[in-house]
């Protein structure tokens, strides 16, 4: 394999930048291989590989891994109240709250508190209902599965990712004109170039009286710009909805794990908690992790199929109908991504439609929220596996565990092994006395700690 393609095989880049993108993704994969090696005691035990670096005997076996597009972490907080969950999924959240910091716009030495917003739609699928500014009527509902990295790359080239070790001869500049063209084509013709970039330096404080720390410089691409939040949707905004996160998760999930009694951890819920493989509340992370881990335990080495990306792969059009039962399946339309690898889709009436989106029924309910369509939308990524003649590595112990909220035990949070659950939370996955005893014994032994794979991109 010579190069890694763009997500969805989109053709926005000239050949030089295409090579630069490939080098960037390759650098991320190399970094993940190195991190995994640190976890399992050496590169010879790593079963996650960069397809540009590893020759495989014959074609890779592919595995499609799918999950629901509606954010389960939101749904789980609204038991028995799907309408409440849909409303909550449409409400922006503060990025500062997510990271536990306060953001500031710094201009002429003066810091002014600002709020950067993201969507809580964290199953690698986000949506936006575009409305007529005069009537308020919904015009279309747009969905994307495109990570922010590609758009940051368009804005700043490889230099937008200083922590990635891209070889000097493969570093490229961004293509801001192309970025603007895409925004105008996909989001709104009214997008102005200056709307897309921070017009001041951006800094943050970890505590109210803490020091200001730099976040982004003036002129850097702003993924939380108004055309990607309040007024439109170009790419994913949730901090955990990233291409880097996908690669990171797949690599970390390639490490077999064992419980305190030495039994391999194979159950999706326990595996995610054991190795802190993303958010245990999500549909996506446990599913991706377990499927990758399953392949490794079978003695295979794993990677992600090129083009690496997160895709909108199915929409159940039987769920939607017109007010009189009319077939509106054709209102769903993929608009970005080649060969069935949909990165962007929209649900919109054709120009001659006798009724609008508000008249559409989703399983009998009037269409009010994009989340109703997300509920019948399937997301996928494509894993790939090869037998490189290496047996599965020995499992390593868990370094994290999950706690469940006392008043809603389906809501989980991660803590490191040895830490107490926060007040109002209890240990999830209560074990039998036999297993608890074994866990106690292991608690006294030395473990190799591995950090959470969800590296916040705060300073990336």
């Amino acid at each position, binding site marked *: 394999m010579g190069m890694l393609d763009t997500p969805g095989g989109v053709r926005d880049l000239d050949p030089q930048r295409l090579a630069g993108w490939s080098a960037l993704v390759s650098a991320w994969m190399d970094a993940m291989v190195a991190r995994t090696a640190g976890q399992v005691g050496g590169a010879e035990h790593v079963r996650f590989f960069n397809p540009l670096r590893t020759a495989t005997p014959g074609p890779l076996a592919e*595995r*499609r*891994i*799918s*999950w*629901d597009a509606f954010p*389960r972490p939101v749904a*789980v907080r609204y*038991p*028995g109240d*799907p*309408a409440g969950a849909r409303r909550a999924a449409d409400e922006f959240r503060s990025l500062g709250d997510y990271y536990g910091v306060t953001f500031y716009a710094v201009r002429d030495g003066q810091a002014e508190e600002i709020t950067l917003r993201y969507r809580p739609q964290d199953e690698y699928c986000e949506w936006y209902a575009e409305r007529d500014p005069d009537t308020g009527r919904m015009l279309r509902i747009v969905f994307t599965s495109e990570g922010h990295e590609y758009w940051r790359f368009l804005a700043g080239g490889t230099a937008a990712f200083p922590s990635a070790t891209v070889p000097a001869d493969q570093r490229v500049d961004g293509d801001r004109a192309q970025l603007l063209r895409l925004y105008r084509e996909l989001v709104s013709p009214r997008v102005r170039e200056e709307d897309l970039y921070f017009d001041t330096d951006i800094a943050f404080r970890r505590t109210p009286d803490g020091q200001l720390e730099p976040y982004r410089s003036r002129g850097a691409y702003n993924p939380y710009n108004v055309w990607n939040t309040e007024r439109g949707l170009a790419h994913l905004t949730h901090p955990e909805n990233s291409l880097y996160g996908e690669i990171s998760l797949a690599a970390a999930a390639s490490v077999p794990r064992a419980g305190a009694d030495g039994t391999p951890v*194979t*159950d*999706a*819920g*326990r595996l995610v908690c054991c190795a802190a493989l993303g958010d*245990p509340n999500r*549909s996506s992370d*446990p*599913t991706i992790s*377990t*499927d990758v881990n399953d392949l490794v335990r079978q003695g295979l080495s794993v990677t992600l199929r090129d083009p690496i990306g997160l895709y909108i792969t199915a929409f*159940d059009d*039987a*769920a*939607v*109908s017109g007010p009189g*039962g009319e077939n509106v399946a054709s209102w769903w339309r993929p608009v970005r991504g080649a060969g069935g690898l949909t990165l962007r889709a929209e649900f919109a009436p054709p120009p001659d439609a006798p009724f609008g989106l508000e008249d559409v*029924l989703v*399983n*009998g*309910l009037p269409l009010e929220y994009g989340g109703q369509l997300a509920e*019948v939308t399937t997301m996928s990524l494509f*894993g790939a596996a090869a037998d490189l003649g290496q047996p599965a590595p020995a499992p390593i112990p868990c370094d994290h565990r999950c706690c*469940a909220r006392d*008043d*809603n*035990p*389906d809501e*989980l949070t991660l803590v490191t092994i040895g830490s107490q659950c926060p007040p109002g939370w209890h240990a*999830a*996955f*209560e074990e*039998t006395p*036999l*297993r608890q005893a074994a866990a106690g014994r292991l608690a006294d032994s030395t473990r190799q700690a591995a950090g959470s794979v969800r590296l916040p991109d705060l300073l990336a």
Partner: protein
Amino acid sequence: MNPGGSAEPRLDLDDIQAHVLPGFGHEHQCLLGWRLPDDDPAPPARGLLAALADRITPASRGLHIRQLRRAARHGRAEAAATTPSSNEPHSSARHGRIDPAVLAEPPALAAAVSARTLRVLGHADVAAIDEAFAVGMARRSYLRDPPSTEWTTGGPGREIDILVVLAGDDPALLADAAATVSGAGTEAGCELVHEQHARRLPGDIEHFGFRDGISQPVLRGVVDDAGTPLVARTPMPPMPDHRAYAAPGDVLLWPGQFLFGLPRQSATDPTRPLPARSVPALARNGSLLVYRKLEQDVAGFYADTARMAAALNTDPADVRAQLVGRRPDGRPLVRPADATSAELNHFGYDTDAPPIPDGPRGATADPDGLRCPLAAHIRKVNPRDQETDKGPSAATLSFAILRRGITYGERYDHDSPGTADERGLLFLCYQTDLTQQFELLAQRWANNPERPRQGLSNGVDLIIGRVTPGTERRATLLAGEVSTMTDYVHPRGGAYLFTPSLSAIRTLSKANAP
């Protein structure tokens, strides 16, 4: 014993309807559906419910009768009267001699109401307790059922607002009871829009010839101050699937999964409960009922599976068993053919089931469908310990339903083909979340070729799965892929209903809503 460590709730067996718990095991049933008039519908609704209120069979009575019927059927009445078996519901029959008259007592009766009925009686809050219930089955388009205008049951103008289920072993007594109830409905001013007789086939098989209803969840809960569990527990070793069992194969679930107002099953922890949902008082001890009439095309099923078998160069009986996942007598394909009756439900797909001392033998797992196809009906709607697209196997427990189905129509005579008689299954099931239980199993899993098992396109459930009309249904069996344009099961309509507690029925039958 409670492996989860949480106290199990008291079940009010005098308030819960017996059709929910433990279900009607009688040979004959008669379903009567009424529609309320468009004008002033409340008085007729109250009138009929008032007539029914004192006839409804409570769970306590249902358990008692079931115990006696089982004992009588197995010829061990005296033993049952004094010795609780390991997996029999608690019953007063344990403490006294059987009254033979109970076997000929009046038919059991259950009543359920539509969201419309609740609204017209002033209980819009209960009508809105579940989104799918409030909307109604006819509008849940992703089930891919035929349009309701084509329904023979519950279609436009024939919507079922009050459903009565009568059950008995004596057809004459049942007919008398049905006539009495029909008279009450007519007198109250309701329109009888549905009358359906049903009869269990010998051996509890369905019309395709397979034993049905083998795998049912077991409710946690106690029935008295002494903490006597509803279902006695057999000591079990820790199971690799982390679930708790009342006995081998009998997985324990928290009752709020099926009854409002009680602790619910968690989607993440198989043993620890979720708190009870906050619901209107009227909903407590009630449950949501799916009634879906499924006509079965027996001749089509046999002809099509014979065609598939010929293409795969295999036995048609094997093809049919693989579509179901069990052999006709209920033995699961995951197990060797010498499985005993105690072993029908003690197996997993992802992890080996251990041998149980003095109980069933162990069973080897079958994660990739090498003995039981991933598209087999029993795997599609109950993936057991296998991870699914909805997450860890614990989540699967939170989708479980209590099935109360019964066959209707005469058994197909293979020696006299061509009979035009209609036959099928009256699919009835209970839950407290239609979207996350019945609809998830039917729509998300049975109809989807890539779910619930991840990563492998295994096809749809060819028994009940539905696809876009005019497109092929496909499944991967052990010997290869099969496809068909033939539906063996044809949905003929039905309704989403609410089965209230006995006290709620009395409240609904009174004039003043709260």
